[in-house]
């Protein structure tokens, strides 16, 4: 029974996959959809192989690396969606590479200052890579909220819902990953339990956001629009003549 608790997110992920398919979100957010589908498949695979120690070891760490990579791609997709109106501004294309550089740099710096208590180079580099991705996710989430709060954005949008889920999970996961690398396997149960709860909460946020269909922006009435644009053009003409 205790072992089953670790797999609570799996049915939630399967539900989320169904919701995303129903909303057609695999077209709008392909990386995020891939991340969720991968997560569901990874959890099922881990569950099926948990009886075979050596196989489970490889499955666990390889799927962990997959989570990290797809999580980073999902954040990149998210950032592109939010900043789509600013793609002509050259420096917006540098934001994601800069954040990744900071994340990787900070993670490697920390690895040298506080060497992780882990056995084996593979696990060491996967955990270091995970820390880097968590830093990227936390950075992007916190940056997005600051940007949205300052410049004014509609809060109830799918990209922001995705950001909130990643924000919850990556904040807790970064904390637990750092502590796991500091203390090794001594507090494994606590870190794993906290991670599961945070991930389940994140999936519930995503289900909550995607469960409600996105409302289409109502098209303006063509007659009133033509009249309104005519008024605007008249006003602009008057201004030009006055100069």
């Amino acid at each position, binding site marked *: 029974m205790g072992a089953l608790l670790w797999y609570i997110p799996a049915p939630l992920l399967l539900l989320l996959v169904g919701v995303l398919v129903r909303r057609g979100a695999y077209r709008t957010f392909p990386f995020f959809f891939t991340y969720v589908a991968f997560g569901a498949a990874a959890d099922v695979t881990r569950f099926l192989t948990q009886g075979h120690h050596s196989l489970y070891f490889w499955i666990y760490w390889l799927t962990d690396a997959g989570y990290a990579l797809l999580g980073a791609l999902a954040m990149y997709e998210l950032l592109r969606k939010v900043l789509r109106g600013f793609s002509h501004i050259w420096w917006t294309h540098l934001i994601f590479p800069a954040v990744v550089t900071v994340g990787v740099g900070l993670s490697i710096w*920390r690895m040298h200052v506080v060497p992780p208590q882990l056995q084996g180079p593979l696990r060491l580099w996967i955990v270091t890579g995970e820390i880097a991705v968590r830093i990227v996710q936390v950075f992007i989430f916190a940056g997005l909220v600051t940007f949205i709060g300052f410049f004014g954005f509609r809060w109830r949008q799918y990209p922001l819902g995705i950001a909130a889920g990643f924000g919850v999970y990556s904040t807790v996961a970064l904390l637990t990953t750092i502590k796991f690398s500091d203390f090794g396997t001594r507090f494994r149960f606590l870190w794993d339990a906290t991670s599961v709860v945070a991930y389940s909460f994140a999936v519930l946020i995503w289900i909550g956001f995607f469960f*409600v269909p996105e409302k289409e922006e109502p098209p303006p*009435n063509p007659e009133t629009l033509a009249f309104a644009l005519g008024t605007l053009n008249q006003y602009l003409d008057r201004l030009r003549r006055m100069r």
Partner: protein
Amino acid sequence: MLSSILIWLLLAWSALGLMYFLYRACARVPRHDPKNLVHYLHPVDWDLLESLLDPAADFELRWRLSPREFREEQRCRMRLFRELLRRMSHNSAVLAEFDNALFGKDDFTPGPGSKVEEAAIKVRLYCTAARIKLRVWLSLPDTLRAVPMPDLARLRMAADLDGPKVYEELKAAAVEAFADLQPAELDALTRNL
């Protein structure tokens, strides 16, 4: 040690951001009547804006006035431009809020970003970048004559955005979004923006 501090600061920033995000996502959308929109706007004198950003005006002032008089006059023009930027930024925030109210009438209905929202963000981005530049220029001591007084025309572009152009895009988006207003109200909207 420093790396740990930075990571903890990042975590704290994220935690605060999450609380703020959940508060805003769950908060009710303010009910605004589009008919009241005009009363929230601060008029932006378009002629004054264009004259302040006109490079010919900068050149004429430099030619006509002594260096000291030019510095004083330019500071006055910068403060005037700063006020116009404040009004443009305020108007963009008001339009975004009314557009949001127009769109988000349901309790929890996710929706995509609208043209007004995108244009409003560009205007605010431009205004923020231009105001930062103005703050730096205005903070330069008057006695520092070795540093030449900058031309206000340079503020036409800030954060890679053409200020007057993005404001015109905002006006057009606002007119399209609030096209259902009465003709007199629509006329007042275009005059007040």
